[in-house]
């Protein structure tokens, strides 16, 4: 009786749905960005605020703040859809479950990774980075946040349905994200010093590719178990 929906169509619908929902409550996707700004600002406050000093710290502050706000945001990736039964319906929709979750992760990246990357140059300048570093900072965070979102999706799947997912989530995700942090911070540092950042960027790209292939499968396995 009916034309079945292709997997691309289904993924596009999920993307549209999640973006629609987010734009109905703009406060929500602005929060991780605001969090990011606040955390980067805490550093100068806790230190004696000399700019020359701060600049050496900038990559670390940016990346630690980015990772934390990414972990904070990822907690919501599946939580609501799990609670209200939507994920059950995804699992029963006849589409590949991992694929649908990848679509959700992509929407999440658009809503948190991209704004984060756009915000990072401002924070970098506030921490004393030169204006020339802007494209480099932006690029490294844009690429790094892809793998952060993907790694986060695994953690979100594993902690779905737990009462206090948040803290456990960071315990699981942050160790997995250590390589991203190291290469990302290195890329940002090189760009602040005006050097070529190709090396760490290739490694970040490799991490993202690896993440795209592995993370949805792991997340789907974990979410399916938590639906029982």
């Amino acid at each position, binding site marked *: 009786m009916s034309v079945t929906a292709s997997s691309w169509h289904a993924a596009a619908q999920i993307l549209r749905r999640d973006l629609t929902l987010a734009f109905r409550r703009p406060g929500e996707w602005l929060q991780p960005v605001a969090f990011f700004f606040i955390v980067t600002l805490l550093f100068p406050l806790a230190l004696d605020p000399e700019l020359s000093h701060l600049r050496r710290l900038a990559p670390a502050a940016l990346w630690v703040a980015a990772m934390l706000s990414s972990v904070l945001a990822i907690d919501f990736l599946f939580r609501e859809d799990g609670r209200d*039964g939507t994920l059950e319906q995804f699992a029963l929709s006849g589409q590949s479950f991992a694929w649908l979750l990848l679509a959700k992760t992509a929407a999440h990246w658009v809503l948190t990774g991209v704004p984060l990357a756009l915000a990072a140059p401002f924070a970098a300048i506030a921490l004393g980075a030169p204006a020339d570093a802007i494209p480099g900072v932006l690029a490294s965070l844009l690429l790094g946040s892809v793998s952060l979102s993907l790694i986060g999706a695994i953690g979100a799947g594993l902690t779905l349905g737990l009462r206090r997912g948040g803290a456990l989530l960071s315990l699981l995700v942050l160790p997995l994200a250590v390589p991203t942090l190291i290469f990302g911070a290195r890329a940002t540092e090189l760009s602040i010093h005006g050097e070529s950042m190709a090396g760490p960027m290739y490694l970040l790209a490799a991490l993202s590719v690896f993440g795209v292939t592995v993370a949805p499968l792991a997340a789907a396995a974990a979410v399916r178990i938590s*639906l029982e």
Partner: protein
Amino acid sequence: MLRGLSLRLAEGQALQLLWPNGAGKTSLLRAVAGLIPVEDGQLLWRGNRIEDDRAAFCADLAFLGHDLALKGDLTAAENLHFSVSLRRRLAGGEIKAALDEVGLGTRADALVRQMSAGQQRRVALARLGLWGARLWLLDEPAANLDAAGQAVVVAALARHLAAGGCALISTHQPLDLSASVNRLWRDPKEAA
């Protein structure tokens, strides 16, 4: 948890499980849907083992659990649109018609968040109809519904059965389905 059960549903047939609290109605429905693993025993759909082609089984299946899978921040029409689109492409006007059938025609553009528990359940019923599945698994579909709401459930089920579908329903009060093939099952130990 449940043992020694055996049941068979034919086209146009509805089976209502009237078991007491904690007997395993919810668990049975979720196991049939494939949401919890079946430890022992097998499920057949149209003569094939479900594990062999889960996608085909899912295409024929509509599951309505305790959680309605509705987004409070989307309107009733949007909710129906997004959830049905995962399964099939919609023609124009279908959603409006489905909402009319459950008595929510005028509230298509209201946010689900602002609806009462009973109205939300009606939206979920409208979705059931749109999916066009053959087998409905309904867990307490009449919970939170007043008399008018229960009539909506009964009417939706009647349409579905008349069109050759079948349904497995858990309830605490039997629904008065006029379909001749409606059966009640009051105790899990009784054979169906």
